[in-house]
């Protein structure tokens, strides 16, 4: 299969996908944005492409494990897995499903049976074959009872996995689950033989089938990967992808450090640019800025399980007292937007409902109605992060002005997590991550089992709506259900979604054809260095 992403118009993409109706909707919704991204790049003839070179990438979160099974969900992990492994599908920056190991897939009428036709001739880096059995092994490993895999819960809906032949995989679900295709599609497939052979060491010396293979890595150090000479996807020049000789991934959590090292040429790619720096690097002739489909939402959380914020009217007073636009403008330097729920702009499920109005008088009235005409003192616990700190001081000023007097308590992350997990927080700030994959990826906020529900928000009606949305295949209907969730969430004012800042990455100008997929992961097989 020849993959040239420039040619991958939505129509071509649909040709192999029998469940085209839903995808067609997804594509039309995302189409305009997709074209804009693609069109921004200069079209180069194939013979101009230069092979070779090393791409050094600076990531915010250092790699925690090379095995997705034990990953601590660092951004460096996700970015590395995209180059080290293949998955059934990949999701373009704008939410389109792109075939990868699965050349074709069908879903039965009842939404219970998923049949994948698989690419043949795919070899793991250890020489073993990636076939239906290998994928079955992976899924069973990830979803097993007691699995440490972060997405294990989402795979528990599977009832059986069968591999009738090497190129066919049939998965049967216990209940219809529309997000399943995305959830199962992006799972990295590791080599079963290597898992058996390496055991615990697999997380240090991963074996996948991706365009790059492991060369060296130790926890806390820079990771090196080299070109997979036998990669199964063929480039337009007749030789296999990738174009690059090697890939280096280094963790650098500090925004300023990553930026300085990008400018000095120490790195070719910087995973994330702080919004404050975008203006200054836009004028650098050696740097290009790339908008990703990923965004970081900022959330004010109120603990509804204990006094005083078990009082819904009081929570609504807080909600009305927050000038969301002013907060997001300040922290994003104008690049951010307000949101009623953590869905990114550009996704088919983006909900453009207006955020609750900022109204000081209404807030004061609600405060009095809640039984606090003389105001109230609350503790505002935040994690020690620069943006949280900045938001907290604005929120404090806005709440102080209506009579909710806050004391900011800056805590270490683990201390904060302990405080909120024990439901002893009062008012707090959360950050999230949002990608245009599926609305269900945000379900953790309302889950009664997920650790991500730090406030202990328990609204059975919302969970019921989400379940309903997950069983529905019709996209328009799903969107309607999520709009209901949004309205309930806004009314409850437990998680007050303030706004989101789109994730912007930056690369040296020589980096050509770097796509971002599933939000912000780097698709590097067709990337080359124009030097």
């Amino acid at each position, binding site marked *: 299969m020849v993959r040239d992403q420039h040619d991958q118009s939505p129509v071509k993409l649909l040709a192999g996908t029998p469940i085209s109706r839903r995808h067609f909707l997804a594509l039309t919704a995302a189409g305009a944005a997709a074209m804009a991204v693609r069109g921004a790049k200069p079209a180069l003839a194939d013979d101009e492409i230069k092979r070779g070179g090393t791409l050094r990438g600076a990531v915010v979160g250092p790699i925690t494990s090379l095995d997705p099974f034990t990953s601590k969900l660092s951004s460096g992990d996700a970015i590395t897995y995209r180059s080290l492994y293949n998955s059934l599908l990949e999701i373009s920056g704008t939410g389109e499903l792109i075939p990868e190991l699965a050349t074709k897939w069908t879903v039965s009428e009842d939404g219970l049976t998923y049949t994948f036709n698989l690419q043949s001739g795919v070899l793991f880096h250890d020489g073993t074959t990636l076939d239906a059995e290998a994928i079955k092994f992976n899924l069973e490993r990830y979803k097993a009872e007691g699995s440490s895999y972060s997405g294990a819960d989402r795979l528990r809906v599977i009832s059986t996995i069968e591999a009738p032949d090497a190129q066919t995989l049939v998965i049967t679900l216990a209940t219809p689950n529309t997000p399943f295709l995305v959830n199962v599609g992006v799972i990295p497939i590791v080599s079963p033989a290597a898992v058996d052979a390496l055991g615990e060491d697999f997380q240090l010396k991963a074996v996948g089938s991706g365009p790059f293979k492991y060369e060296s890595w130790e926890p806390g150090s820079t990771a090196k990967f080299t070109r997979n000479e036998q990669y199964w996807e063929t480039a337009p020049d007749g030789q296999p992808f990738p174009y690059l000789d090697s890939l280096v991934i280094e963790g650098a959590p500090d*925004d*300023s450090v990553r930026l300085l090292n990008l400018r000095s040429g120490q790195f070719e790619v910087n995973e994330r640019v*702080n919004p*404050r*720096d975008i203006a*200054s690097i836009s004028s650098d002739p050696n740097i290009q800025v790339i908008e990703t489909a990923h965004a970081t939402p900022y959330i004010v959380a109120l603990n509804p399980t204990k006094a005083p914020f078990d009082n819904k009217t009081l929570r609504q007073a807080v909600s009305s007292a927050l000038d969301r636009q*002013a907060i997001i*403008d*300040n922290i994003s330097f104008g690049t951010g937007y307000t949101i009623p729920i953590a869905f990114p702009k550009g996704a088919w499920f983006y909900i453009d409902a207006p955020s609750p109005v900022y109204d000081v008088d209404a807030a004061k009235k609600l405060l009095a109605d809640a039984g606090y005409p003389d105001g109230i003192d609350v503790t505002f616990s935040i994690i*020690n992060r*620069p943006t949280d*700190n*900045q938001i*907290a*001081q*604005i929120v*404090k*000023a806005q709440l102080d002005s209506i009579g909710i007097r806050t*004391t*900011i*308590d*800056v*805590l*270490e992350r683990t*201390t904060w997590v302990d405080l909120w997990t024990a439901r002893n927080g009062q008012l707090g700030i959360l950050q999230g991550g949002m990608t245009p994959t599926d609305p269900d990826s945000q379900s953790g906020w309302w889950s009664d089992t997920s650790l991500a529900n730090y406030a202990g928000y328990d609204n059975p009606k919302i969970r019921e709506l989400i379940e309903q949305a997950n069983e529905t295949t019709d996209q328009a209907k799903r969107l309607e259900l999520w709009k209901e969730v949004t309205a309930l969430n806004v009314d409850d004012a437990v998680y007050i979604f303030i706004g989101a800042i789109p994730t912007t990455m930056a690369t040296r100008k020589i980096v050509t054809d770097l796509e971002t997929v599933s939000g912000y992961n780097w698709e590097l097989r067709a990337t080359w260095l124009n030097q």
Partner: protein
Amino acid sequence: MAFSIHASIDPAPTIGAHANDERARFNRLRKIARQFRRSKQAVIGLTIIVILAIVAVAAPLISRVDPGVPVLGNVLQSPSWSALFGTDELGRDVFGRIVHGARISLGVAALAVAISTVFGVPIGLIAGYWEGIVGSVLMRLMDSIQAFPAVLLAIAIASTLGPGIMNAMIAIGFVGIPGFARLARGEVLRIKAVDYVSAARASGAGNARILRQHILPNGLAPLIVAAATSAAGAILTEAALSFVGLGATPPQPSWGSMLQAGYPFITLAPWLSIFPGLAISLATFGFIFLGDGLRDIFDPRMRGR
């Protein structure tokens, strides 16, 4: 540091009470004041400290803006006449925050040094006077505290107690205890062998009286020098603690926390880091100059150079 200052402070007030005790004390103060004026370092140091102290006390008069309230329409303005040191990422006047921050930074320095001396000096006195088991145990305890790098230990304590200016103060003060204890002990060991102490003991003075009346006053000079110098250290440690988020809680404007908040903007708005940094340097200089000057005055061997 040289601590043989014994000769410089009149060792006379020993046996029996002087009839003209008051007058002797007055003369001695005049002598110190005269020497003080001759030490340029001491004068410069004291001037800086006094000015900063005035700024701290009069902060609300010097800058009328509330240093904690964001002015979102006015962020990251470069220094100008309306905002001498520019504005920060939340539109607040940096000059006003530094002025108000003087209260926190100097207050922390003063209280942390107070904690160090209040605990450190008595420990040193006891350990020096009763050299046996008591002294050994106390000093080994002090050694074990000093075995840790000071800033690291302060960070450990502050993070255990939780962020906040009060806890930062306790942490900084605690870390300073062994230094004062060792110094005080050294002085006791030196002084208690001197004749006038034996004389006092011979005339029936109790241990407490000997410590209070004879040993402490004569060992005070190096402790004063050390207090000034460690005030400088306390300001730096507070800045370090605030820089890692363990000092002042927002929106309190401590200089260290201003540095921390301003550092990410170093290329975009350098004034956010430069001015708090200068304030920290100035206060540190002030205390160190004062300390060095005082040492020169108290130490006869350094005098006249």
